[in-house]
C-alpha cells in the first residue's frame, strides 16, 4: 500500500461538512481484497482489537481508514465520519477520515499506516504507546477547558470561530464583527486592568476607595519590617509575594515572630516585594465576574486527606490521586495533589510527616492554598451568594478595570454580605481559570463560556457578515464582481476573492488566482470587511475544503459540459457537480441558493440546499423555473427586454437597457450573470433601488475586469478580448459575437495543454462555424504537451468548419494578435482569446493607442 498524497480538508468539502484528512492511496494487487490476504485481518485485530468491522471484499485502504478513525476514537476525539472510495484508476482509493485536531488526525493516519504495515508484515505494533502519543499530542494541541467552554458556547450560538494560534488565541465572528479571546480574556480586556490586578496593593487601594472590604496591610521592606507590620495589624496575618500567582510563597494565618520572618524569606524568593496583611478567617471563595454580572462562585478548599487510622498520609494522598478525574495539568477536572516540600512543611506545621498515620476522621491539610492547580477542590456556591456580596465583587472588577475577573474573597460564608462578617476581597485575578466553575468538584457546573460569549455578542448577533459564495464553470468572476458591486452600493466594505485577486472595498490587495479557501479566510479575518463575496473554484474545494462554514447565498452559474475534467479524479460532469454543490450544502437555513434553472445539473442541486432556492433562466417557461414560480417561490427571468424577479404575484423589473453589462440584453451570458447577481442581491435583502443603481453603474472594461469580454474599437473594427477557455465559454462568446454586426469575423485562439483532447478540439469545432478566419497560436507554456500537439488538436477541430476559410498558425500570443490586427478591415470583428491576460491586454492597448 502506497500513500500517494495526504491533504487536510479544513472546511466543508466534497465528503462532508467535517474537517478531515484526505489521502490518495494505491493498493497493491494482493491488497485489493483483504479476504484474500491470509491472516491479515487477524493480525490487524490482534494489534488493534477495537478497530471496526470490515465490509466483505474490503481493500487495505479501508483498513487504513478504519484504523486512523479508530485510533482517534480510542483517545476520546469526537469523530464520526470516515470513508474510502475507489477511483477510476484501478487500485487507487481516496481515503477520508474526520479529525478534530489537525495534527492528531495526521499522526493517527501515520500510526494507522504503521499498523497496517505491521499487520501485513507480521511485525510488532505497540498500541498503548501509539495511543499515548496521540493522547499527549491531543492534550497539547486541543483547546484547554476554559477556552474550550467558550468556543463551545460560540458554536452553540452559531458564531463561527477560528484558532489563530496553536495556543488559546481564538477569533470569533468575521471581518469587522470579529472578536477575539485568549483563554478567559476577551479582546476588550484591558492591559491596564491586568496590570492593576497584578499589583495587589494598588488593587486594595482602589477597592477600598469604592467601599469594597479588603484586609488591612502593607508592603514591607525586610523581615524585620514584616514583623513590625504584623504587629501593626495585630492578630493573625498573611505573608505573600506582591507580584505572585497561583499561591506560590503564600503563608496564611501566622502570628509568631518566627513564622512571619520565615514566611517573609519564602515570599521574597518569589517577588522582590512582600506584603503582610490581616488574615481573614473563613473559606476561600472565587467569584467570577463577567461584564457587569456575577456569573459563578465557588468555595475552594486546599487539598487535604481524611485519616482512616490505617494508612499513612502518603498512602492516603496516593489514594486520592488515583481518582481518574485527577490529571497532571489544567486539562482535567481535578489536578493530582503534589507531594513536595510545601506539602511536607504544611504537614510539619500540623505535627505530621509523610509516613504518619492520622487517626480515623482526622482532617490533614496538605497545603494552605486552595488553587486547583496544586490539587485543591472547588464547590459551586453560585446560588448562595448574597446580592450585596455579588455587588461588591462587581464593583471590585469595575474598579480594577477588568471585564472578566476572578475575585478572591475570604469570608465565613457567602450567604451574608461581607460587611456583616469579617470578610474581604483579598485578590482580583485577570484571565481567571474557568475550570472550577465549568466542572466544579462538587455542585453544579455553570454556563461560563456562554456568559463570555454573550458579553461579546448580543443575543441576536452571531458575528457573521453577509457571505456569498459563487461557483460554476463560466461567469463566476463577473458574477462575483457584480454581486460585490451591488453589496458595495449599500455602503458596506466588501471583501471579494476571485481568480484575479483579493479586493477590499474595491482595492486590490493581492493578485493571482485567489479563489481558494486561504484567500477566503484572509478576507474573513480582515478587520475592515463588512460583507464577503467569494469565487470558490474547484481546486480549493478539492484540496482543502471551503474557507468558511456557512454562507448566506450560494450561486452556481452553470456546469454545462464542465471544465478541467480529468483532474483530481473528477472525470465526469456529475463528479464536478458534486464539487460545486459543496457551497450549496453550506447555505444557511435562512439562506438562499441561486441556481441556473436551464442547466439541469445545476438545477438538481436544489435538493442539497438547507435554505431556500431562487432559480434563474432566460425563459420563464423553463420547466424547473416554471414549477418553482408556480409554487410561489422566487425566480428571475427575462421578458420584454427586462430582467424580472418574481415571487408569487410580486414582480421587480429592471430594463435591460439599464444594465450596460448586457449591451441591451444582446450578450446572453452577461444577461445570465446579471440575473444570477440580481437573484443573489435579492437573497441578501438589498433594496431594489440599490440593485437597480448598481446594475446601472457597474463598469466592466479591461481595467476593472481584465479578460472578461473587453470590447475595443480598433480602426473602425471591433476587438473583443476574453479569457474564455472551455467549450461552454466559447459557445457563450459565439452567441455574443453573432449578435454583433460584422463584415468578417476573426478569432485568435490557443489551447490549454491540461485539458482533454476532446475539449481542445471542440473549441475550434464551435468557432469554425462562426468565424471566417482563425489564427491559432501556441505559447511557451504547453502544460505537459509536446510542441505543436495542441495546435494540431485545434486544427483537427476545424476540419469540418462550415465558415472558416483562412487558418494561420503562429508561435507567440502577441505575434498572433498582431497578425490578426494586420488583416482587420473596418467593419470587421475580431475575438481574441487571450491567455496571459495582463501582457495581452497591455499589448492590445498599445496597438489601440498607435491606431
Amino acid at each position, binding site marked *: 500500500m502506497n500513500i500517494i498524497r495526504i491533504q487536510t480538508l479544513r472546511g466543508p468539502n466534497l465528503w462532508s461538512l467535517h474537517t478531515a484528512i484526505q489521502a490518495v492511496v494505491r493498493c497493491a494487487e494482493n491488497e485489493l481484497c483483504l479476504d484474500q490476504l491470509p491472516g491479515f485481518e487477524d493480525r490487524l485485530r490482534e494489534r488493534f482489537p477495537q478497530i471496526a468491522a470490515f465490509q466483505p471484499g474490503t481493500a487495505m485502504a479501508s483498513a487504513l481508514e478504519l484504523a486512523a478513525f479508530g485510533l482517534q476514537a480510542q483517545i476520546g476525539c469526537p469523530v464520526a465520519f470516515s470513508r474510502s472510495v475507489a477511483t477510476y484508476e484501478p487500485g487507487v482509493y481516496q481515503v477520508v477520515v474526520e479529525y478534530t485536531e489537525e495534527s492528531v488526525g495526521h499522526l493517527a493516519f501515520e500510526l494507522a499506516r504503521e499498523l497496517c504495515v505491521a499487520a501485513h508484515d507480521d511485525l510488532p505494533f505497540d498500541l498503548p504507546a501509539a495511543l499515548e502519543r496521540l493522547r499527549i499530542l491531543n492534550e497539547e494541541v486541543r483547546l484547554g477547558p476554559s477556552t474550550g467552554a467558550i468556543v463551545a458556547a460560540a458554536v452553540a450560538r452559531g458564531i463561527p470561530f477560528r484558532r489563530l494560534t496553536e495556543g488559546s488565541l481564538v477569533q470569533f465572528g468575521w471581518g469587522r464583527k470579529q472578536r477575539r479571546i485568549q483563554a478567559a*480574556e476577551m479582546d476588550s*480586556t484591558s492591559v*491596564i*486592568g491586568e496590570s492593576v490586578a497584578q499589583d495587589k496593593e494598588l488593587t486594595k487601594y482602589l477597592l477600598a476607595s469604592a467601599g469594597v472590604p479588603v484586609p488591612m496591610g502593607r508592603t514591607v521592606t525586610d523581615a524585620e519590617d514584616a514583623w513590625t507590620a504584623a504587629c501593626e495589624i495585630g492578630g493573625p496575618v498573611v505573608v505573600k509575594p506582591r507580584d505572585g500567582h497561583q499561591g506560590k510563597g503564600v503563608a496564611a494565618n501566622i502570628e509568631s515572630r518566627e513564622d512571619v520572618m520565615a514566611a517573609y524569606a519564602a515570599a521574597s524568593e518569589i517577588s522582590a516585594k512582600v506584603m503582610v496583611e490581616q488574615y481573614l478567617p473563613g473559606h476561600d471563595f472565587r467569584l467570577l465576574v463577567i461584564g457587569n454580572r456575577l456569573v459563578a462562585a465557588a468555595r475552594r478548599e486546599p487539598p487535604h486527606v481524611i485519616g482512616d487510622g490505617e494508612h499513612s498520609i502518603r498512602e492516603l494522598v496516593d489514594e486520592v490521586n488515583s481518582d481518574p478525574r485527577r490529571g497532571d495539568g489544567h486539562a482535567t477536572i481535578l489536578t493530582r495533589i503534589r507531594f513536595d516540600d510545601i506539602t511536607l512543611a504544611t504537614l510539619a506545621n500540623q505535627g505530621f510527616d509523610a509516613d504518619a498515620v492520622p487517626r480515623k476522621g482526622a482532617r490533614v491539610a496538605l497545603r494552605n492554598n486552595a488553587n486547583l492547580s496544586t490539587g485543591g477542590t472547588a464547590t459551586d456556591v453560585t446560588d448562595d451568594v448574597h446580592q450585596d456580596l455579588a455587588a461588591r465583587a462587581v*464593583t471590585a472588577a469595575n474598579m480594577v478595570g477588568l471585564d472578566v475577573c476572578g475575585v478572591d474573597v475570604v469570608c465565613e460564608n457567602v450567604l451574608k454580605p461581607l460587611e456583616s462578617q*469579617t470578610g474581604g476581597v483579598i485578590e482580583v485575578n485577570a484571565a481567571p481559570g474557568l475550570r472550577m466553575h465549568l466542572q466544579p468538584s462538587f455542585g453544579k457546573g455553570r454556563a461560563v463560556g456562554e456568559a463570555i460569549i454573550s458579553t461579546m455578542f448580543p443575543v441576536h448577533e452571531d458575528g457573521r457578515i453577509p457571505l456569498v459564495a459563487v461557483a460554476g464553470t463560466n461567469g463566476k468572476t463577473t458574477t462575483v464582481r457584480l454581486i460585490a458591486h451591488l453589496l458595495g452600493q449599500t455602503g458596506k466594505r466588501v471583501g471579494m476573492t476571485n481568480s484575479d485577486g483579493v479586493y477590499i472595498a474595491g482595492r486590490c490587495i493581492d493578485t493571482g488566482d485567489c479563489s481558494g479557501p486561504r484567500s477566503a479566510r484572509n478576507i474573513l479575518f480582515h*478587520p475592515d470587511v463588512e460583507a464577503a463575496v467569494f469565487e470558490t473554484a474547484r481546486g480549493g474545494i478539492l484540496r482543502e475544503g471551503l474557507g468558511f462554514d456557512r454562507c448566506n447565498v450560494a450561486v452556481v452559474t452553470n456546469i454545462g459540459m464542465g471544465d478541467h475534467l480529468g483532474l483530481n479524479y473528477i472525470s465526469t460532469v456529475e463528479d464536478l457537480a458534486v464539487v460545486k454543490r459543496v457551497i450549496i450544502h453550506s447555505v444557511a437555513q435562512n439562506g438562499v441558493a441561486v441556481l441556473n434553472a436551464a442547466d439541469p445539473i445545476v438545477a438538481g442541486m436544489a435538493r442539497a440546499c438547507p435554505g431556500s432556492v431562487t432559480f434563474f433562466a432566460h425563459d420563464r417557461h423553463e420547466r424547473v423555473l416554471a414549477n418553482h414560480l408556480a409554487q410561489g417561490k422566487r425566480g428571475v427571468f427575462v421578458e420584454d427586454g427586462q430582467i424580472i424577479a418574481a415571487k408569487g404575484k410580486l414582480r421587480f423589473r429592471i430594463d435591460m437597457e439599464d444594465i450596460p453589462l448586457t449591451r441591451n440584453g444582446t450578450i446572453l451570458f452577461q444577461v445570465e450573470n446579471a440575473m444570477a447577481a440580481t437573484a443573489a442581491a435579492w437573497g441578501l435583502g438589498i433594496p431594489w433601488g440599490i440593485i437597480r443603481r448598481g446594475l446601472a453603474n457597474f463598469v466592466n472594461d479591461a481595467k476593472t475586469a481584465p479578460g472578461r469580454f473587453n470590447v475595443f474599437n480598433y480602426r473602425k473594427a471591433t476587438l473583443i478580448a476574453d479569457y474564455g477557455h472551455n467549450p461552454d465559454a466559447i459557445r457563450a462568446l459565439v452567441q455574443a459575437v453573432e449578435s454583433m454586426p460584422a463584415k468578417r469575423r476573426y478569432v485568435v485562439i490557443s489551447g490549454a495543454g491540461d485539458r482533454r483532447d476532446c475539449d481542445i478540439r471542440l473549441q475550434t469545432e464551435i468557432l469554425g462555424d462562426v468565424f471566417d478566419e482563425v489564427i491559432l497560436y501556441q505559447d511557451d507554456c504547453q502544460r505537459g504537451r509536446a510542441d505543436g500537439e495542441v495546435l494540431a488538436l485545434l486544427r483537427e477541430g476545424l476540419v469540418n468548419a462550415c465558415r472558416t476559410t483562412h487558418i494561420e498558425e503562429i508561435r507567440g500570443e502577441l505575434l498572433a494578435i498582431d497578425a490578426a490586427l494586420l488583416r482587420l478591415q473596418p467593419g470587421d470583428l475580431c475575438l481574441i482569446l487571450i491567455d496571459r491576460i495582463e501582457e495581452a491586454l497591455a499589448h492590445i492597448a498599445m496597438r489601440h493607442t498607435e491606431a
Partner: protein
Amino acid sequence: MRNRKENACVTAMCDVGFMQRKAIRFLNILSLRGPNIWTYRPVLEAWVDIGALEECPSNTLPGFVDRLCAWLPTLAGHRCSYDEPGGFVRRLHEGTWAAHILEHVTLELQNLAGIPCGFGKARETGVRGIYKVAVRARQEDVARACLHAARDLVMAAIEDTPFDVEATQQQLQELARKYQLGPNTACMVDAATAMDRGIPTLQLSADNLVQLGYGSRQRRIWAAETDHTSAIAEGITRNSELTRRLLKACALPVADADKGEPEGGGQRHRLLVVGDTLVAAARLDAGAENFSLPHTAADVTDQVHPETAAAACLAARVIGLDIAGVDLVAHDIACPLASQDGAITAVHACPGLLTHLQPASGEPRPVGRAIIDHLFPNGDTGRIPVVGVTGSSGTTEVARLVAEFLRLSGKITGLACADGLFLNRRRIDASDCGNWQSGRRLLMNCSAEAVVIENGADVILGQGLAYDRCQIAVVTRIDPARHFGKYHIDRPEQVFQVFRSQVDVVLRGGVAVLDAADPMMPEMLPLCDGEVILFAIDPTLPEILEHRSRGGRAVFIRGDGLVLGSATDEASLVPLTEILLIAEAPSNEHLESVLAAVAAAWALGIAHHVIRTGVQTFSPDSNANDGTHPTTPDPITPHSMPTHA
C-alpha cells in the same frame, strides 16, 4: 476665574520685640492637595516661626545676600514683587524677611530638582514672627524635601557655615526622578489639563497610573497605554511570528521572518497610530539603536504617503490596538511601501512617545494631545456633575439633600459629608467624611455618575478641595466668628478668602448657589465664572430683587410655598407644609438648607417633580441606609495611595 489681587510677597513689619534664637522653625506643614486659599493647585503651607530673625531683615545679615546668591545664582531670575528678573535679589538687598526668603529658596530648589514651580507666597500671621509660607507642590514629597533643604540652606547662609548645594541638588533631583511621571504619561497629563481641554487628572499610583476625568466618566492611562488597550493585542505584539502572520493575512507587507528586515534595506521608521489616525512618524537617525531615546529620530509626519499611513492604521486594527507604534523599513516614506520593497517589521503596544516629542530634527508632534483627543473626543472633559458644599453651618444637610435629588434623578450619586461616605443609599463609611480624602474616593469611583462633597472651612484651610473645578458650588450662611482662632484666621476678610475658594472653582457653565442675605455675598458673586443662583427666605430682599432684575435666578419663600424665580417668572415648587424636613423640625436654618439644596438641584437641571418628591420625602435619619443590612463600622481602613519605590 479671577486674578487674586494680593501681594505675593508681604513683608512683615519689623517691630520692637523680644530676643530669640536666630532660627527658622517649622511649626506645621500642611499639604493642601487641591484648590485652596492660595491657589488652584496643590501647595505646601508651612507655618514658620523665624524667631529672632524677625529683627533681622536680609540686608542686616552680614554677607548673607552674597552667600545666598553665590550658592543659588539662578535666584537672579526671580521677579518677585518688582515683576522683572532680579526683582527678588533687589528685595534681598533692600531687606526682606526669612520666611519670604525661605519661599523663594524652596521654589528655586524645586526648579533645580527638575520640577519647575512658579507659585509661592509668604504672609505674616497675627502672631509676631510667625508666617505662613505657601509653595507650589507638584509632587508633595519633593516639595517637602525642598522646603527642609531650603531652611537648612538659608540658615547656613545666615550663619556663614558650609553648605553643599551641589549634593543637595543631586539628592533632590533623585527624589524628583523617583516620583516624576514618565515622559509618556506626563505629556498626556499635560495635554489633558491644558486650558482648552480642562480634563481633570488624578494620579492613582506613583507608578504612572493616572485617571483622567471623574467617576463613571473616567478613563485611565498608564504610560502610552489606555484602559482600552487590549491585553490580547499587546500579547500578540510580543509574538513577532504571530504578528507577521496576521499582518500578512491582510496583505500588509511584512519583513522576512529570518532577517527581521526586508531584503531591499532602507531606513527604519516609527509610525504612531492613535485610534484610526496616523499622528506622528519618525525616521531613525543613522547610528541610533531604537526609538526609545529623544533626539535620535527625524520627524517625517508630513511626508508619509497616504497609502503607507493607511497601512500603518490597518496594522494597528489587525492587531487590535488603539494606540500602536508601527515600525517599518522604507527607503522613502513619501512613497508607497510596495514601490520600494518596504515592509512592516513590528507593531508595538505602549510605544514610547519621546521620539515624537523630542525629534532630532523637524517639528515636535503633539502626540499627547492626539491621545487625549482620542480618549475624550469632541471636547468631552470627562467630568461628572460635582457639587461642592461649603459654609459655616447647614452644609451636611444641604449636601445630603442635593445628593438625594441627584439620586432620585437617576444618577448613581456619591456623597461625602459629615454623616459618612455614601454611594446612593449605601453608607460605605460611617465616620466623618467631609474631607479631601473622601471626596477623592468618590471621584475615583467608577460607578459614581454625580458627586456631592461637603467641604467645611477646615477642609479648605487644612486639606484643599478634592476636585479641581466643580459644576455647582453651594455656600451656605457664613458666620465668620465661628472660624476665628484656627489656622491663624482672625479676621472676616480671611474667612471670605476661605469660602471664595469654593466659588472660584465653579466651571464656566456651572452655578454658584449663594445666600442672598449674607453680607459677603455681593463680593463673592462676581468671583464666579458661571451663573449665580441666590436663595433667601425673604423674596423682597434688595439683593434678590436686584439679581432677578439683572436676569438672575433665585429661590425663596413666597406665601406658604417654595418658589423658583427667574427674572420674570415664578414657579411654586412645593407648599412648605409638604417639606418633610420642615414638618419634622421647623426652623429658619432648615428652611435655608432646603432653599440652598433646591437651588442647587435647579442649577443641575433636575426636573421639578423630582425635586418636589425629594423635599417631600427626604429625612436625614430615614435615608441613612437602605436597610438591607445593619451598618457596621467598616473593619477595613482605606489605604493611602501606594507608592512604588
